[in-house]
């Protein structure tokens, strides 16, 4: 027992580092009160150290630690690296954000909370026990509620926080109910234990006939919890208001890292719990529930998510809100990769997430830079921006083209692998709906370019000057967005090596 805990700690280094950094940053904030940039720098150093330990784990280690509470495997390591990279970017963004650094706010706490949020997300990627999953989800949710309402004096921000709390507590309550039903049926909270209970003659032998139905109901409740985290329709209602009201750096973080953690947890739950160890020889060896195919539920949610996200995005005039709906649509695209139920689908999602990290963070960052200067996020205020700030306008256009999924950007590669996985698995209808959605999305992204390049500036036409550091950070996001579209084989290799989950062969 003791030996096992000590062994487990060796594989728990990134999380330990983040915990120490969290406590230390709180203490440093108490000592150096009015130097938030110092705390920001400290947090960056801590994230880099945690990132180092994550990369050290990227040697194919597949192990279950803390008596099956937590899994360390290539799949979770991939997501952890993704989350830490986006946390680094978000801290850098926050150091430059004008809406945050207005002198009134205590930003030391902001960085401590960001670390707590990243820690919760790391725990979500590896949690392999239903209670651990719930705790990690709550740690992530509670810190994001606070961060979403960080601009206390702005009513929108408080509204965002309140809506987030209400939707979040409702859906996590439903998920907890689902967990309790699953525990009642199978007598286990560990996803391996549930898998074992189900594969040993199925749930019908454990209890009366109605329990198959109860298991389906419990899984629908679980989908509510996951769907809320990845903002899938019909659990998306919080997304636009929260994304609009929250500080833009937090919006960027929620739209990328929070979604990645939600996907990681959801895929681990469904794939490991309903993995059929007997029929392992077949390609699609993730089986559905006995007598019920839950992939259809996910397919329907996926179609609803992308269609609704894209159709509502057309009508938005605030760019932050537009990007919120577009991120709902992207969650829909990625859900298509879950539906195909094979390793090709998982690796397509992993590729998509890397690409999505660069393009979405980039889009939010350029929107933040422009808002810092012109004080507005309305699409109408972007008129003639191509002449006033050519570099930033071109970068924003590259990010939006990548989000649409046009070559030669990385967005194309992400969508290519996703659709290839779908077509290989004979989900042609779903692929057609996905392609139609991409056409719709081109319209609203193109509206932004049109305002930037084809319209004359209205009032002020003076050029906007950006500092070298802003241009440097933008380049750090633009270069991967283009490069991964041209030279993507290393990314694909890493993603294909990272599909291995603990408990799966």
């Amino acid at each position, binding site marked *: 027992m*003791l030996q096992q*805990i*000590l062994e487990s700690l060796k594989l728990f280094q990134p999380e330990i580092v983040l*915990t120490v950094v969290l*406590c230390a940053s*709180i*203490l440093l904030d*108490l000592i150096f009160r009015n130097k938030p940039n110092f705390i920001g720098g400290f947090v960056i150093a801590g994230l880099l150290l945690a990132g180092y330990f994550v990369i050290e784990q990227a040697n194919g280690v597949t192990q279950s630690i803390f008596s099956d509470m937590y899994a360390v495997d290539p799949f979770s390591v991939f997501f952890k690296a993704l989350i830490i990279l986006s946390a680094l970017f978000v801290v850098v963004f926050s150091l430059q954000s004008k809406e945050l650094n207005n002198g009134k706010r205590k930003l030391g706490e902001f960085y401590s909370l960001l670390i707590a949020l990243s820690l919760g997300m790391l725990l979500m990627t590896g949690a392999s026990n239903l209670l651990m999953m719930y705790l990690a989800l709550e740690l992530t949710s509670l810190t994001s509620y606070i961060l979403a309402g960080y601009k206390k004096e702005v009513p929108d921000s408080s509204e965002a926080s309140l809506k987030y709390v209400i939707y979040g507590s409702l859906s996590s309550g439903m998920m907890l109910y689902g967990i309790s039903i699953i525990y*009642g049926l199978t007598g286990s909270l560990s996803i391996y234990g549930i898998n074992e209970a189900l594969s040993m003659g199925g749930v019908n032998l454990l*209890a*009366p006939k109605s329990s198959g139905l109860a298991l389906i109901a419990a899984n629908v409740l679980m989908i509510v919890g996951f769907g809320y985290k990845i903002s899938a329709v019909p659990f998306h209602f919080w997304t636009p208001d929260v994304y609009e009201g929250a500080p833009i750096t937090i919006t960027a973080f929620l739209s990328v890292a929070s979604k990645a953690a939600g996907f990681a947890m959801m895929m681990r739950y469904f794939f490991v719990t309903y993995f059929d160890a007997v029929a392992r020889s077949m390609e699609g060896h993730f089986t559905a529930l006995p007598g019920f195919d839950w992939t259809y539920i996910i397919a329907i949610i996926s179609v609803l998510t992308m269609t609704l996200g894209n159709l509502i995005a057309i009508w938005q005039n605030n760019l932050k809100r537009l990007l919120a709906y577009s991120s709902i649509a992207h969650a829909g695209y990625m859900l298509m990769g879950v539906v195909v139920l094979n390793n090709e689908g998982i690796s397509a999602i992993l590729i998509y997430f890397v690409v999505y990290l660069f393009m979405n963070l980039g889009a939010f960052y350029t929107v933040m830079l422009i808002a810092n200067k012109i004080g507005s996020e309305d699409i109408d205020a972007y008129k003639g921006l191509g002449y006033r700030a050519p570099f930033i306008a071109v970068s924003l256009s590259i990010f939006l083209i990548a989000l649409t999924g046009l070559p030669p950007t990385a967005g194309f590669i992400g969508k290519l692998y996703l659709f290839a996985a779908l077509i290989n698995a004979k989900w042609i209808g779903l692929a057609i709906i996905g392609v139609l959605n991409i056409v719709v999305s081109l319209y609203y992204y193109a509206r932004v370019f049109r305002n930037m390049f084809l319209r004359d500036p209205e009032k002020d036409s003076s050029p906007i000057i950006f500092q070298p550091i802003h241009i440097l950070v933008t380049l750090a996001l633009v270069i991967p967005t283009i490069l991964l579209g041209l030279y993507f084989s290393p990314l694909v290799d890493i993603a294909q090596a990272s599909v291995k989950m603990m408990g799966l062969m």
Partner: protein
Amino acid sequence: MLTDFGRVFLFFIIAAIFVAAGLIVARLLRPHRWYPGKLTTYECGEEPVGTPWVQYNIRFYVVALIFLIFDVEIVFLFPWAVVYQNLGMFAFVEMVIFLVILLVGYAYVWRKGDLEWDRPEPEIPFIQILKRFIS
């Protein structure tokens, strides 16, 4: 035959019937002689003043939260103390880490001034000042 959950359900039904029956029977049997003093809210013998629907100071919640955290700490410390002999050094180090994390929270609360109880000046409504002035 009843399943395990069926028994729980039966338990709920019987509990509901028991409560309802108790209230109804008491209503039928008891004498109805009331006066205003009997109908007031029971507040440990004190006479209630004003309405309970007032805004409470947020400080009460902060103090309640801090109390809760340290209360839970004790809940964790008791089982730890019971098995301490068997676990030895490892358990000690583990509990020290737990306490240090809690102490960070305590330092935070202290430094941020949430433990200070500065009473705000009571706001006297203008009409009362006027009354005092007249009398």
